[in-house]
């Protein structure tokens, strides 16, 4: 019976809150640590992340340079700590803009339907059919390589996932009774959309945005590998891996530590996504 089912769902909701999903805490903790490192980078980093020490090039991890140094004699640990600032920023902005654009367009399409929906779905088809790394490369090259272009490209390419997700959600919720009730009570479109539809439709996207952050980070790294990422000598993990590529067999530490950094941050985000999904009962 519907009633019984709702009650069980409700119990599940509370259960999740009370007991708390482990991934949520774990993911949250990882992100928090990175966030703290990023904020306190000036205090924590032992060296200037861009200072080149000609006498200390390619040193393996030792007591002076815990994570070793790169081919310019820059301290890897300091670069990773400072890099956290950029990478968190990448994860944030790389998600926020697509999220905003995607949810707006997706909810309009889902709510109004008709030709708006048709046009938008066709555009989404086109963007999806395009190999997106290539699209991003092209956009970045047009705008000139760098972080801000990366954000723009990410926004132009990444919104489709959110649009699809929100649209699908809106379509489901649109036909639910409480939206019908809102219509029957004579509420305006904007009120129904912003007060009733979106708050309920957006959960899935919020959870998705966490795992999307992982993809954004990796995209950033791939873009750096192809040479279109942040401007040198900025410390950023993707570019550190890319620069350390040529030393992968001779000086493993240059790529391994930023690699681990990316993986842990990515894990933090996916764990958080898992936990949030479990908590809010959202499936990807």
């Amino acid at each position, binding site marked *: 019976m519907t009633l019984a089912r709702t009650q069980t769902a409700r119990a599940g909701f509370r259960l999740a809150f009370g007991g708390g999903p482990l991934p949520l805490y774990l993911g949250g903790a990882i992100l928090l640590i990175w966030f703290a490192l990023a904020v306190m980078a000036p205090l924590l980093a032992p060296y200037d992340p*861009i*200072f*080149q020490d*000609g006498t200390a*090039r390619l040193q393996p991890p030792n007591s002076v340079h815990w994570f070793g140094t790169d*081919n*310019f004699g820059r301290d890897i640990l300091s670069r990773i700590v400072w890099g956290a600032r950029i990478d968190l920023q990448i994860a944030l902005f790389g998600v926020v803009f697509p999220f905003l654009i995607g949810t707006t367009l997706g909810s309009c399409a889902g709510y109004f339907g008709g030709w708006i929906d048709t046009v938008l779905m066709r555009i989404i088809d086109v963007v999806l059919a395009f190999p997106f790394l290539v699209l991003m490369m092209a956009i970045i*090259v047009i705008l*000139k*390589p*760098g972080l801000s272009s990366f954000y723009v490209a990410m926004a132009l390419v990444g919104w489709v996932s959110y649009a699809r997700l929100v649209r699908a959600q809106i379509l489901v919720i649109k036909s639910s009774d409480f939206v019908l009730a809102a219509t029957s009570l004579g509420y305006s479109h904007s009120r129904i959309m912003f007060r009733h539809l979106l708050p309920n439709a957006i959960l899935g996207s919020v959870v998705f945005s966490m795992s999307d952050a992982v993809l954004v980070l990796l995209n950033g790294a791939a873009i750096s590998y*192809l*040479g*279109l990422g942040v*401007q*040198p*000598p900025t410390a950023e993990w993707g570019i550190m891996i890319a*620069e350390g*590529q*040529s*030393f*992968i*067999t*001779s000086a493993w530490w240059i790529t391994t530590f930023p690699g681990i950094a990316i993986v842990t941050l990515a894990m933090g985000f996916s764990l958080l996504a898992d936990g949030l999904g479990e908590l809010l009962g959202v499936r990807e």
Partner: protein
Amino acid sequence: AGVLTIGRREDSSTFDPIMTAQNIDFWVFANVYDVLVRVDKTGTKLEPGLAESWTVSDDGLTYAFTMRDAKFSDGSPITAEDAAYSLTRIRDDEGSLWSDSYKVISKMETPDPKTLVLTLSEASAPFLSSLAMPGASIISKAGMESMGPEAYAEKPVASGAFVVEDWLRGDRVILAKNPEFWEADRVSLDGVEWISIPDDNTRMLKIEAGELDAAIFVPFSRIEQLKQNPDLKVELDPSTREDHLLINHESPELAKKEVRQALDLAIDKQAVVDAVTFGIGEVAYSFVPKGALYHYADNLKRPYDPEKAKQMLSEAGAEGLTLDYLVNAGDEVDEQIAILLQQQLAQAGITVNLIKMDPSQTWDMLVAGDYDLSVMYWTNDILDPDQKTTFVLGHDTNMNYMTRYNNDTVKQLVADARVEMDPAKREEMYVELQKTAKDDVNWIDLYYSPYRNVSRANIEGFYQNPLGRFFLEDTVKN
């Protein structure tokens, strides 16, 4: 005997010699085609190729070549007519990338199949050198006419040591020994495979794993480590490559010679050599590369002196200078140099903004003069210094290699040197040019670097001359 497999960064794009300007293609052309006149192994002398001998008229306008008894890979003889056809094509064909360099030929005659007579419109000292360029490779007239350019570019009729057996686009070029080659007994290999492996790491791992006989473009960073490996031989062959820092003379502060000299002083080239080339390169001091014809070994070597640089800058009223530095995105070495120079110039009080750009776009910006500094490199295509000098100092159509360097005396001197046929006098003129360029700081010479190749221990004679030609006809696989 055996097939030599060589790993390189990219695959060939064509086998039509006139359609490309890329080393990657040229280096294979030299295996497949022969030229009238060759550059020798040391890269300092010309020697006979398909032309057995030649005479030059006193006014330097008429060249008479006697053709050797040689055959194309299809068995037909290589005649003077084929040679004339090849040169006409490079001069006149619509798609030719090199026509400008051969416009000087005004007339080609083939009185008999063994004789080719070329008449020039003006005397040209570098002319003979330019015939050694792979673009001027001798192709089969009959073959080209019957196959059409597209098919010929795919599977050419060869005049060189090897013939294209198969070409797996994007992957590898498979060459087989050409039994009809006039020096066929010199060739020991049964064939050659040029394999494209874009990733530097993968290429090195592949040769370490023994899946390749040789690999070219060894990254500087790997040389030391590869040398440790007893199964491998790392070859550092002198090249004509020179890396330099372009300066835009039209940007207001940089128009002053003193400022440019201060920049030169502020750059620690040895540090670049150490950090970027791992000590393998050598500090450069002239635009004519070391070991090349007319290189001036005593040219001025400005010391690294950031204090003096600072002082000169303030004297020139260019304190707190801020410069835009264009970096080629995706080029590891370029990025490394940029990062180093940024820190060095900062010590002389110069702020450098790195602007990373996709290479094709950097090119546009350089042409448009939208930059202050940028790193570029040059390798010679021909033996004679004229080609590079003209591009760099001769006020050619490319604004002196985009530097917009402007010195009329130099310009005149370049033109004079081109037509001067006396080697001793030419040498003097080129020394003068090198001195002036250095004084004017047309650009900043950074370093010379060798070709870096690695081969398995059982490979012998895997050698590249300074112009980049591989002598695979002498390579032996044991």
